[in-house]
């Protein structure tokens, strides 16, 4: 597919995302299209689809405008926050489990689910942020009061180390491998791993931070934050015309990502199928998170020609080498052998394709007069052994490596969606019969 945003035909995406909002979901109009941008680090060629997605509009007739503050349905076959059109902001947190009591942990998952259900609907946690007993601290921390749901999605994941607890060893999916060491990795263990993760995405950063903060608060005594990451990124969600967002190197990123509308490719590359096993993962996915530090100062001193050679695309339009338009089919052999797009392309990696959902970050400075900036890379896939791992191995010779360094890494099994009001995150994993 080489569709550009405005050319892409839409389909009912209820099946794609698996999230339905009380019957209000319907086929969005062309005008409701908004930008889909897996903000992955220019692994753009790893996907071969149009770069569009669909904003859920509810029953509002002004879809594009409504999309900015609307709620994304929490319930569905798949968790929201994966095929959902990418929101502007991210707060991601990895947790370590402290409790050794299985029942207590299950109760936490239920409590988290209840809080997530409320927060994604734009409601406060528990009894709210005010009006309760004056002697008690309020259930909700309050900073999201008066803000719109902002398309908040909360997506939970289970890390390999969780399966060493609660007698879950035999339930660990084969596909949930420990990531191998890749060339150039300089991983900080304090920014890596984790028993659990929660990805909070929203168009308003305060809504995303509020969600993580309140879940962490509910978790005290049971789980502790191991590391967390804020991300900013794309800003095209309110424009009807999709525009591929740019990473901090100034290049368009995610041009060829999997679109939220591409049911077949989502099924093939993102969602765990029934035959993949284990049963509790059906409808789920696998997430790889990498904190990629960019040496933006040295990058900025690099000539335009070299920058474009390194990526294999031109800086302005984002067209592949030798082509005129961003979405023209790349001719890989025209690129330098160590060009990023060439090495990351599915054709170079036996068809390996991942759905990227990363965000740029700038966490202050590094104490040496430089910004601590980069890309928080998030990639969803059906099987990391056929997704991130071959692509990242291929990138060992990437010319871009001179300017980037992977400093944090984690992998999580993303369970399927919460079906209804009685369901909860991880039910299938923790239920005896599953």
């Amino acid at each position, binding site marked *: 597919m080489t569709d550009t945003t405005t050319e892409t035909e839409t389909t009912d995406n209820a099946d794609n995302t698996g999230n339905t909002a009380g019957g209000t979901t319907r086929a969005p109009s062309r005008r409701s299209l908004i930008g889909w941008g897996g903000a992955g680090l220019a692994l753009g060629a790893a996907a071969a689809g149009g770069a569009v997605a669909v904003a859920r509009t509810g029953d509002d007739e002004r879809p594009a405008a409504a999309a900015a503050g609307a709620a994304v349905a929490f319930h569905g076959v798949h968790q929201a926050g994966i095929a959902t059109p990418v929101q502007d902001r991210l707060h991601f947190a990895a947790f370590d489990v*402290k409790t050794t009591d299985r029942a207590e942990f299950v109760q936490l998952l239920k409590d988290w689910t209840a809080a997530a259900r409320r927060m994604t609907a734009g409601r406060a946690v528990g009894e709210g942020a005010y009006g309760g*007993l004056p*002697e*008690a*601290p309020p259930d909700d921390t309050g900073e999201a009061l008066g803000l719109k749901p902002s398309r908040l999605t909360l997506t939970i994941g289970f890390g390999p180390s969780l399966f060493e607890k609660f007698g879950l060893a035999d339930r660990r999916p084969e596909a949930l491998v420990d990531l191998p060491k890749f060339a150039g990795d300089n991983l900080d263990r304090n920014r890596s791993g984790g028993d659990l993760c929660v990805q909070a995405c929203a168009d308003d950063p305060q809504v995303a931070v509020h969600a993580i903060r309140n879940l962490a*608060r509910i978790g*005290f*005594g*049971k789980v*502790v934050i191991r590391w967390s990451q804020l991300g900013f990124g794309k800003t095209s969600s309110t424009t009807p015309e999709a525009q591929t967002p740019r990473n901090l190197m100034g290049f368009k990123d995610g041009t060829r990502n999997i679109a939220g509308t591409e049911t077949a490719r989502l099924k093939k590359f993102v969602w765990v199928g029934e035959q993949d096993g284990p049963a509790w993962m059906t409808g789920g996915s696998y997430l790889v998170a990498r904190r990629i530090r960019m040496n933006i100062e040295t990058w900025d001193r690099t000539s335009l020609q070299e920058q474009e050679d390194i990526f294999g695309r031109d800086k302005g339009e984002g067209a592949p080498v030798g082509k005129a338009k961003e979405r023209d089919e790349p001719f890989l052999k025209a690129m330098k052998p160590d060009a990023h797009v060439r090495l990351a392309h599915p054709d170079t990696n036996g068809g390996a394709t991942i759905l990227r959902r990363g965000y740029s970050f700038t966490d202050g400075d590094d104490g040496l007069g430089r910004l601590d900036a980069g890309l928080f890379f998030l990639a969803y896939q059906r099987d990391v052994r056929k997704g991130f791992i071959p692509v990242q191995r291929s990138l060992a010779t990437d010319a871009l490596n001179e300017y980037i360094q992977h400093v944090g890494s984690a992998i999580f099994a993303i369970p399927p969606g919460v079906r209804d009001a009685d369901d909860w995150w991880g039910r299938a994993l923790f239920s005896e019969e599953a």
Partner: protein
Amino acid sequence: MRSARLPFATVAATAAALTVVTGCTEKSSAEGADNIIQVTATDSKCEVSKKEVPAGHIELAVENKGAKVTEVYLLFPDDRIVAERENIGPGTKQTVTAEVKAGDYRIACKPGMKGDGIRQDVTATGTGKVAKRDPRLDTAVAAYRKYAQAQADETIPLVKVFTDAVKAGDLEAAKKAYAPSRIGWERTEPVAESFGDIDPKVDVREDGLEEGQDPATDWTGWHRLEKALWQDKKLGDREKELADLLVKDLSDWQNRVGKAEITPTSMANGAKELLDEVATGKVTGEEERYSHTDLVDFKANVEGAQKSYELLKPVAQENDAALVTELDKQFAALNTLLDKYRTDKTSYDFTSYDKVGKADRKELSDAVNALAEPLSKLAAAVVSQ
């Protein structure tokens, strides 16, 4: 260190249920007037002429017929002092006056000025009677008040060991006595902080001085001496002055603890604030930046918080049993973790905090969060009945 919000208020600082006019003798009242209670104190008895007085201005006409010097107190049911008169010599008369609202009170005579005293219940009658509290909560408050007083009483001699060493110029002995001298204070810090003027004199850190204050002349108290001992490693005339000043300021604390207004809510919030103190001052190593004795303060804060909790537990158990289960668990977990940092569980010789690594500090911080979060719900559990 002093925190921004004070759970305990001093009588003078609050709109208390009544105005206290201790030691006021503006008029001599005729014997037998409705509002006068004759209190006859002996070495073994505390007799009152009546059990009921009308609410409003009242007087206790005290006569000490015993052989010992005595004290007479008018108390709330939770032992908070309404009014008092000390040093009533044998054969002398004194008057104690107060403005009281309707409600239950106690009169206590303390022959020899020791102990809980000999008590008599009295009632101030009238409309607008003060709502009665669960008597178990009054018991809890009274027991906590006693605890706070005992901490102050036990602290003074320990402080003197410390200050004597400072005055003798004995660096090593002073260092050894430093942390133990702070335990009682740290256990009950929120009460001590309610006397807004004492904490800045005895427990302020250099960075806590206000603008315009000169560290050379205005910085007093434990941490100033801590710096002299561990950083400057010398004790001069100024340090010796500061040692005497510390004793004086802490004696002031000892004398005023009984007047702190303590309520079940302030006890619960005080417990939470002790954990806040740990989270912001001790876990970070900021409190004892020269001596690195942070874990001693840490333990004392936890002990003080646990004392409040244990006293409130019977009522909390009824209102929120799950909370009590969680608090028991988290107090135990934190204490177990702290025990890893001392070889003898009966001593306060804890590992120097500069030897506690980042990962271990996070573990301590996680345990503090795990306790502090449910502890923040204790106040609601003791008032929601």
